[in-house]
């Protein structure tokens, strides 16, 4: 199949980028989206041009490295699928695809489709952790976890931190990511101790990173490759209001 691509090309963080048109005449429907970009890059290298830079690692939908906007949808048109797991059979011969990097003030473009997502790392450092004793591993069933809570925590823990939620959000908000971490850790007895501090610190960090805030559009939920629901954002709001009401979780100044 023949695909026409319009790809955001930007030499480096300081450069002014632009959309560039490419033709890929020999796309196989069994290729993944990233393999299609590999084919394009082989051709560009053969012609002595700069290949398109994009992030990727596992290519099996679990690491969270890949991701780009395809025709205005994060990770492309297939629900609950990362870009690396999206196959070209979901497109038609002759399709035109616009490929752009995640766009947010907190995710500056490094090159072409590669963005700097270290703001997510700083959010995790602010509150996405639990206190444990080091040393030998704890007994398997020493801490009892109700099955329902374990399931909900597991659903939230599926977050791979790809940033599609921020990219798709009309406000470039990181709420789904933060909510996922807050639900994942706070639902379990091991993470319950830091619940108040966690939400207060993460919300303050997101503000400092200049992420936007949630207006309940649910566009993040629609594109999350792991199907995380905005229910986790409500949980974050609930934890935040509870922490602020009780005054716990705020450091003494």
């Amino acid at each position, binding site marked *: 199949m023949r695909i026409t691509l*319009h790809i*955001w090309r930007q030499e480096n963080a300081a450069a002014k980028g632009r*959309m560039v048109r490419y033709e890929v005449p020999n796309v196989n429907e069994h290729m993944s989206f990233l393999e299609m970009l590999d084919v394009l890059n082989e051709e560009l290298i053969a012609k002595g041009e700069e290949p398109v830079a994009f992030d990727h690692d596992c290519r099996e939908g679990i690491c969270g490295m890949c991701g780009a*906007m395809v*025709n*205005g*949808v994060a990770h492309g048109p297939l629900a609950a699928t990362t870009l690396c797991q999206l196959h070209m059979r979901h497109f038609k011969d002759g399709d035109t695809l*616009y490929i*752009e990097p995640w*766009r*947010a*003030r*907190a995710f500056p473009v490094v090159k072409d489709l590669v963005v700097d997502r270290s703001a997510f790392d700083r959010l995790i450092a602010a509150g996405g952790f639990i206190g444990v004793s080091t040393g030998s591993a704890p007994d398997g069933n020493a801490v009892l976890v109700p099955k329902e809570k374990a399931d909900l925590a597991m659903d939230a823990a599926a977050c791979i931190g790809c940033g599609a939620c921020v990219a798709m959000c*009309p*406000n*470039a*908000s990181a709420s789904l990511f933060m909510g996922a971490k807050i639900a994942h850790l706070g639902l379990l007895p091991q993470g319950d101790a830091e619940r*108040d*501090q966690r939400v207060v610190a993460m*919300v*303050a960090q997101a*503000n400092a990173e*200049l*992420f*936007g*805030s*949630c*207006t*309940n*559009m*649910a*566009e993040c939920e*629609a*594109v999350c490759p792991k199907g995380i*629901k*905005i*229910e986790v*954002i*409500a*949980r*974050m*709001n*609930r*934890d*935040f*209001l509870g922490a*602020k009401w009780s*005054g*716990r*979780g*705020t*450091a*003494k*100044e």
Partner: protein
Amino acid sequence: MSTVVVHPIHRAVRFYEAPIGKKAVMAATGVILVGYVFAHLLGNLQIYSSDAQQINRYAAFLHNPANAVALWAARSALLAAVVLHIVAATQLWLQNRAARPQGYVKKKDVPASYAARTMVWSGPIVAAFIVFHIMHLTMGSVLPVRDIGLNPNTPDVRWNVIAGFQNPAVAGFYIFAMILLCMHLYHGIWSLFQSLGVNHPRYTPWIQKASAALAILVAVGNCSIPIAVLSGLLTY
């Protein structure tokens, strides 16, 4: 962590600094405004009473000097709610716009509803309508108004409303504003639950349906009055 004593004003400021705090303020003021909209709808529908003076008696009751304190308390609370709601909405809107300085060449909006994406337009238009509405029927500075002359302030609401809506431009603006209010509440009512942390797979679909139904009820109830006047069904 030990109990920390922080000055309540400081605590309130820190609360409001966070976007979730601002959103909670919007939700709380939203509840007040929605409550008012429903009370107001019940007041308006009295125009259909078989007793033509019913709505005027209701107005005279509200304006009775014995109720002045309650009336001004309610008006002050509503004004405060509107101001807080608009200030928080504006601050969040500016912050959210700044969070994506460079937009996309192509961007789809799935599944955000048209109503959800246009809150920041439906809101200010409704606010402009509220100003017009108060100038029209409360202050009487848009069109001539009548008073039935019982105690100091007893407007002839029935005449004022019907005479006003016989002007198609006025009736049209009221209908337009009510459609936008309907859109604002269609997203707003369910949204305030989410902002306050209420979301559950079993209840949220019902909250969303009820939110849409209430928004439509307000619009249909209020729009029926200018339509009834324009079509000649409701006359003085």
